C-alpha cells in the first residue's frame, strides 16, 4: 500500500497515430493516488487524445496504461475503472438529474434503495439538493456540469477524467466551478486527470502539470516548477509572458558566493547557482525574465548590481499594475509594476534603470 511507490496510474511509452499522423510520441508519466494532474498544452498537442486513450475511447497504437497494477490498454471503456466528465457534459437528455447520476449504479444492478441513498449523497456533495427531479434542459450550464461530475463520481472510479470541463461556462462561473471541483477532489481524495488549454486554469487547480506539445511531454512538475523553472523556451512562453535575454556564461565563482556571471549585450548579470544545471564557462544561455520580477528605477538612481538601462516606450495602467514596454538596446521588454499607487509612475520617453534579480532562471541556448 505504499502509495508513493506504486502509482495509481502509469503511462508507459504511449504512442498514438491517426494514419500517418503521429499524435502522441512516447508518453510516459505516472500519477499517484489522490493527486490532481493536469494535461495542458496548445490545441492539437494531443492532450485530449491522451485522456481519451486513458478512458478507452481511442485505441492506443502502442504502449501500456497501467491502472492500479493492471494494464488496461486493451479494455473497452465499459470495463475500465476510469470515469470521464465530458466537455459537452454528455448528459442523457431523456433522463432527469437523478436518473443520470444513478445510471451507472443501476447498471451494476444495485438495489434501488441503495442507488437512491447514494444519489442523494452525491446531490448534496455537488450542491444540487432538491434538483434531482429536474430534466436536463431545465437546469443551467453550471448545474449540468455538477450533474456530470456527480454521475462520474457515483461509481467511485479509481481515476476521474475531466475533459476541458469548464470550457462551456462563462468567465465568472469558470472560476467558481474550478475551485469547487478542486475542493471536492481534495475532500474525497480521488485521483484526477484534468485537461485544459488554459494555462492559468491549469496552474491554479493542479498538484502537478504535464505540459504537452506536438505529442511530446515538455515538462512535468508542480505549477511553480513550470512557471519559475521551465525546462525550455516553449514552456516558458506557454505559461505567462516572458522576456528572453541572450547571454554567455563568463565565469563561475566556485568557492565563495557560488555566482555565475552572464554577459549580455546590455551589461553583465550575475546569477545564483542555477537550477542544478551543469553550465560550463562559455555556454550560451537564455535568461528567462518574467515581467513582474524586474524592478524599475529612475535614471538618476544609484547603481546597483544587475542594473541595466532603458527607455519607456509605452505604459498601460490597469489598476493593480502598470504594464510598461521598455526599450533596452534594440530590444523591447515587458515589465509589470505592481501596486502602482506606491511606486513612481513613468511616462513615455522617460529614461530608466532596471534591475534583474539574481534568481533569474537560465536555459541553455541549444538543446
Amino acid at each position, binding site marked *: 500500500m505504499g502509495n508513493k511507490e506504486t502509482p495509481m496510474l502509469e503511462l508507459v511509452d504511449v504512442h498514438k497515430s491517426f494514419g500517418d499522423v503521429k499524435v502522441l510520441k512516447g508518453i510516459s508519466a505516472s500519477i499517484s493516488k489522490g493527486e490532481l494532474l493536469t494535461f495542458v498544452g496548445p490545441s492539437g498537442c494531443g492532450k485530449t487524445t491522451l485522456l481519451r486513450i486513458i478512458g478507452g475511447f481511442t485505441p492506443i497504437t502502442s504502449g501500456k496504461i497501467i491502472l492500479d497494477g493492471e*494494464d488496461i490498454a486493451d479494455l473497452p471503456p465499459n470495463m475500465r475503472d476510469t470515469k470521464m466528465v*465530458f466537455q459537452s457534459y454528455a448528459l*442523457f*437528455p*431523456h433522463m432527469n438529474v437523478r436518473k443520470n447520476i444513478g445510471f451507472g449504479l443501476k447498471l451494476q444492478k444495485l438495489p434501488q434503495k441503495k442507488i437512491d441513498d447514494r444519489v442523494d449523497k452525491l446531490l448534496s456533495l455537488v450542491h444540487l439538493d432538491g434538483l434531482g427531479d429536474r430534466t436536463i434542459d431545465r437546469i443551467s450550464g453550471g448545474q449540468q456540469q455538477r450533474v456530470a461530475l456527480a454521475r462520474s463520481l457515483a461509481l467511485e472510479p479509481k481515476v476521474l477524467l475531466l475533459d476541458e470541463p469548464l470550457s462551456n461556462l462563462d468567465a465568472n462561473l469558470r472560476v467558481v466551478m474550478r475551485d469547487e471541483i478542486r475542493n471536492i477532489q481534495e475532500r474525497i481524495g480521488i485521483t484526477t486527470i484534468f485537461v485544459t488549454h488554459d494555462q492559468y486554469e491549469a496552474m491554479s487547480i493542479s498538484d502537478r502539470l504535464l505540459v504537452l506539445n506536438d505529442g511530446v511531454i515538455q515538462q512535468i512538475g508542480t505549477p511553480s516548477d513550470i512557471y519559475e523553472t521551465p525546462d525550455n523556451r516553449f514552456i516558458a512562453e506557454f505559461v505567462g509572458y516572458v522576456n528572453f535575454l541572450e547571454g554567455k556564461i563568463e565565469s563561475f565563482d566556485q568557492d565563495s558566493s557560488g555566482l555565475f556571471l552572464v554577459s549580455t549585450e546590455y551589461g553583465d548579470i550575475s546569477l545564483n547557482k542555477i537550477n542544478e544545471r551543469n553550465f560550463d564557462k562559455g555556454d550560451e544561455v537564455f535568461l528567462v525574465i518574467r515581467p513582474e520580477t524586474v524592478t524599475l528605477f529612475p535614471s538618476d538612481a544609484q547603481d546597483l548590481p544587475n542594473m541595466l538601462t532603458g527607455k519607456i516606450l509605452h505604459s498601460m495602467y490597469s489598476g493593480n499594475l502598470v504594464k510598461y514596454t521598455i526599450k533596452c538596446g534594440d530590444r523591447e521588454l515587458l515589465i509589470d509594476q505592481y501596486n502602482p499607487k506606491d511606486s513612481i509612475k513613468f511616462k513615455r520617453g522617460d529614461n530608466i534603470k532596471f534591475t534583474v534579480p539574481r534568481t533569474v532562471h537560465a536555459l541553455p541556448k541549444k538543446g
Partner: protein
Amino acid sequence: MAEAVIGNAQRSLWYKIRIFVNSHLINIFAGGLFALLAIFLAFPLVMVFIKSLWGDDGFTFSFYQEFFSYNFYYWSFLNTMILGLSVMVILVVVGFCFAYMTTKGPHWMRTPLKICALMPLCAPPYIFSISLITLFGRNGMINNFFNLDLNIYSWTGVIVAQCLAFLPLSYMMIENVLNSQNPSLEESASDMGASEFTIIRAITIPLAAPGVLKAALLVFVMTIAEFGNPAILGGRIPFLAPDTYLMITGEGDFNMASVLSVVLMVPCIIIFIIHNYILKGKGYTTIVGKPTAVDPKDMTPVIKYSILAIVVPVAIMILLSFAVIFLGAFVKIVGVDNTFVIDHMLNMQSNTAIYNSVKLSLMAGLFGAIVGTLLAYVIMRGKFKGRKIMEMLALSGFALPGTVIGVGYIMAFNSPPFLLAGTIWILILNCAFRFLAVGVEAGISKLHQISIEIEEASADLGADFITTFFKVILPIMFSAFIAGFIYTFMTTMMSLSSVIFLVTPGFDLAAVYIYLTAQLGELGLASAATVKMMLIVVVCFASLKLLAKKTGLDVIEKK
C-alpha cells in the same frame, strides 16, 4: 515500481472473450446488418443480373440479343423512356407553376392550391387510373355527358395519370427551392427596374435550376418505375414495368423478365448516382441572416393568368378525381346508376384485403424501423470500412423500381437456403427493405444532432453496446424510429409494383385487390377499397405531421 502488472497473458479466457465482445459488439451488429442487406437487397438484384445472362446452356447474351431484335421488347424500353421524359417535362412546368403561385401568388390562393398539389400523396398513384376510367372510360361520366369518344386507354391516359400521381413530388421539391430563395434578391432586381417576367427569367429560374433538376430526375425515376398506371391504362402499349410482370405471370419467362428488369434498372441507377453524388449539395443558398417578412407584390396579370391557365385545370382534375373515387365508393355505378349503396364499402373480400395489408404494413413497418434505426446508428458511429457501401445499399431500395426487386425476390427466395416464397415473410422483408431509406435517413439526421459523447458517457459508466443502444440511443432516436415506422407502414399499404409478384392466390392485399378490380372494370369495388386505404394513409400523414411539429423531424419533406 509496478512489479506485477496484470496484462493480457494473466487474464482468463472468459475475461478475454468479454473484452473482445465488448470491444467489437457494434462491429458484430454491423456484420449482421450487412448480411441482412446483402441477402434481402443485393442478392435479389444479383439474381436478376445472373438470370438475364444465364440460360439453360449457361452464360449467354442471347436474351439481350432477343431484347434488341424484337420491336415489342425494345419499344417497351423506348416507350418507358418517352413516358418518363414527357411526364418529367410536364411536371417541371406544372410543378413550377404551382410552386410559384403558392410562394408568390395572392395569399388566398396559396393554401387551396397547396392542398390540391399535395392531395395525391394520400392516395396510391394508380388512383388516377380508376378516376380517369370513371370519368373518361367507355362508360365514363364525362364521355357520356358530352357524348365524347375519348379513349383513356392510351398514351394520353397514362401520361395524365402519371402526371397527376407524381405532381406532389415535383411540387414539394420546387416549392422548397423557391421558398429558400431570399425575397430581397427579387426586390433588388425589381428595384433596378426589372419586370416580373425578367425577374423570373433572370433570377428565379436560374437560382432554382439545380433544385428543379433534382426534382426532374426524381420524377423521371418514379414515373418509369411505376407499375399501376401503365398496367391499367396502357392497353396494348408496351411499358417495361407491366411487361416484366406479364413476362412472369403470362409466359413464365424469367430470363426475359430479368432482361427487362435490368434495362429498367440501368437508368434508375444512373440517376441515383447523379442525384446522390453529383448533385449532392448543389444549389444556391441565398438566405443569410434573418429573412424579413415580405408583403407579396401583385403579380403581373399576363403572368398570373398564364400560370392560372395551367394550374387551375390541373387542380380541378385532382379534385374531380378524388370526388369520383369517393362517389364511386358509395353509388352503384358512377354516372350510370347513381343510387346510394354501401355494398362496395362492406365487401368482405375488400375488407379482408385491407386487413391483410394493415397486418403486413405493421410488421414491415416495425421490422423496417428497427433495421433502419440500427443501420443509421451503425453507419454513423461504426468505425469499420464499407460504411459507405452499406449506406448506399440501404438507400438503393428507394431508387430501384419495385418490379425489379419483386422479380429478384421470386427468383432469390424460391428455393433453399432462403425458401420464403408463399409466406408472409417474403412480403414483409420485401417492403421493409425497399422502404428502408426513409428510416435510415431520419435516423442519420437525428444522430447528427446527438453528440457522440453521450454514447461514450454511457460506455464510460459501464454500459455495453446493447445497453447503450436500448437505454440511451433508442430513446433519443425514438422520433426517427417512429417516423421510419409510419413511413414504411404507409408506403407498404399503397405499394403494388413489388408485392404483386409475391402474393399467393387467396392472400389478397389492398393494393393488389384495387389493381385487379380496376382491371376488371369493377370501379365501385376499386373505389371503395381506395377510399378505405386513403383514410388509413391520411391518418399516417397526420401522425407524421404531428411528429414533425413536435420533434422537428420531417420525413415527408425529406422524401
